């Protein structure tokens, strides 16, 4: 069976600097994979290039999603096909109401799927339901997107958006950074509730801590722009104990 996400020999340049250098990664549908790596190894670049950020130039290699080459697709086209990126640094958007923004996004995606658009009443009841599950302050959804949110509230807002948009592939870019242990647990529960045979997750993280709560099917080690080691969930524990230096030595 074709993997949901298939990345082959990917080279990516950002502002003329090569960040990813021949990265290979496959995530079958229904699986949760973690990518771990030290600072500067290319983790965030991987997240952004999957989501289609401009300025991330693919010089070699290919990204297939659902068997289709999506390397040239605009970010919105990928989102409509079910790709979601939870940002490491969610952007504050003054003057744009959270609910308004999310309703526009949901309906854009529903339109693409051939589903009828949600009206205000249906959308609000959907939001209320998800807000409660994530222990999210209901006042925040009436405020401008991420404006004045604490670090933890921003991250929870990312997960809230994910649960409302119901993607097929969710990429979580260092969602654990800046979270205290309670917030981490709430975010992890939100993700675990969404795990299903019809959905895959790519969890990108620096620390093993998050993976105690979101237990991955596979763990990959990213170093200097390439996957240098892959294994089961035990690999994360070993990395935590031994550090990234050891993994580099294995490939040397």
């Amino acid at each position, binding site marked *: 069976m074709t993997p949901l996400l298939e990345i082959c020999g990917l080279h990516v340049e950002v502002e003329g600097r090569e960040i990813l250098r021949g990265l290979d990664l496959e995530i079958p549908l229904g699986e949760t994979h973690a990518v771990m790596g030290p600072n500067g190894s290319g983790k965030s670049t991987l997240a952004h290039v999957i989501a289609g950020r401009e300025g991330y130039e693919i010089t070699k290699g290919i990204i297939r999603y659902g068997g289709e080459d999506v390397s040239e697709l605009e*970010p919105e086209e990928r989102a409509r096909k079910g790709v979601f990126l939870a940002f490491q640094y969610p952007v504050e958007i003054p003057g744009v109401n959270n609910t308004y923004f999310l309703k526009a996004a949901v309906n854009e995606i529903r339109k693409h799927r051939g589903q009828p658009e949600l009206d205000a009443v249906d959308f609000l009841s959907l939001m209320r339901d998800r807000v409660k599950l994530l222990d999210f302050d209901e006042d925040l959804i009436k405020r401008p997107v991420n404006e004045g949110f604490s670090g933890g509230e921003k991250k929870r807002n990312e997960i809230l958006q994910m649960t409302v948009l119901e993607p097929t592939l969710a990429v979580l870019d260092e969602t654990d950074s800046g979270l205290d242990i309670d917030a981490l647990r709430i975010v992890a529960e939100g993700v675990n509730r969404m795990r299903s045979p019809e959905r895959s997750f790519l969890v990108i993280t620096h620390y093993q801590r998050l993976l105690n709560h979101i237990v991955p099917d596979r763990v990959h080690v990213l170093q200097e722009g390439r996957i240098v080691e892959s294994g089961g969930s035990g690999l994360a524990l070993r990395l935590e104990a031994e550090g990234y230096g050891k993994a580099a030595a294995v490939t040397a």
Partner: protein
Amino acid sequence: MRETAAVEAHYRDEIPVRQGDPFAVRRTEAIREFFRAGGFPTATLEDWRFSDLDGLGRTAYRRYSDVPTLVPAQTDELPGWVGDFGCRVLLSEGHPLNADEFQNRNGLEVGNLPAIPAADEPHDWGFVAPGEEPGGTEADLDAPLRHPLEILNAGLFECGFRVRVGRSQDAGPILLYSLRHDVGHPAMLHPRSVIELAAGSRLTVVEAHDGASETAGWTNPSTLCRVGENAELFYVRVELESGNIAHTGRVTFQLARNARVRSTVLSLTDGKSRTDTAAILTEEGAEVDLEGLFLGVDAAKADQHTLAIHAARHTTSRQLFKNVLSDEATAVFDGKVVVAPGAIGTDASQANRNLLLSQKAAVHTRPRLEINADDVKCAHGAAIGRLDEDALFYLRSRGLGRMDSHEILVRGFAGEVVEKVPVAAVRSLAKDGLTRVRESRSFAA
């Protein structure tokens, strides 16, 4: 010299002649004063450097005839939003279309005054006697009324409109809507309005200037608002004129003790405009918010001049002017705050924020502070930027298209001013303006 004399003679001949006009002599004096003080301002003057209205003095504008282009029966030809107002003054070429509808109830008096009552004093209509400005550091509280084009308006105004709200009454919203047409010759229009709020009263008023013209046109309205003790005024100004019309308008607020004014100037013109907004905080506790939004497309140009004079203790002024500029649109912001000697406890802030959507759009911004007292708080800032790439990617990564994402960010930027406008019809005009921005050549290019 002879040339100037000829221009002066031309405008003296354009003074409207009304039977029983108690200001007939004053009008002639005003024209004389205007030309004695230098006549039409040009870009060589500091205060008019970016206004680009040199053409004004070179065109021999004439009054409209005494017959409006529209007749009262044609009010259904007015734009639909005008119908949202229960109380409205509709003008065509400066002539009232619906004088019979003017309401004088619930303490609200709306007057159409082609002939000014003989009992009125020049001061009632904002005339200031020509004379010396106060010397030294003393603040000139009449400075806005000495504006050269204000003086010219005093000489040439066709109709006077007066709105009065009685003590402790709550009135409005009321619409003052002025529409002009192209009559084939360079025509000028000088509407003059006086709005008076008695102590403890409240009023929402919308002043709108509309019309299109291929032939050169000039609109030069003056509005004076006197806001009494503890009274509250919401003032909204909408500039909708298009084509070859130059707009030079002024609104002046005089605030008594604990009076409050919230003013929004919405520039939706595709021509050239210069608007001077002035607030004179004459007594303790007065508070004013001056806001503005220009949505510029094509070669539109809006020049916003503001002046806040803090003449008493513990007065507050907040200014927020925003510009969204596409294509070759140009914005000017020249904001001045004057703190008079002894005006301790003044709290003044001023912000000018600009969003440039095109390489060719331009903005000139100049904050000016004149502080002559101790123990005051004055803040100002200006920002010029483009749409945030991170925010665009964020929206697009959620499935929103490129154009839609640009539009959402522009609406968010404009919303800070638009959402505070207390009249739905005006907010929807702003939305139409945002649609024009979206449809402009440079948008998301």
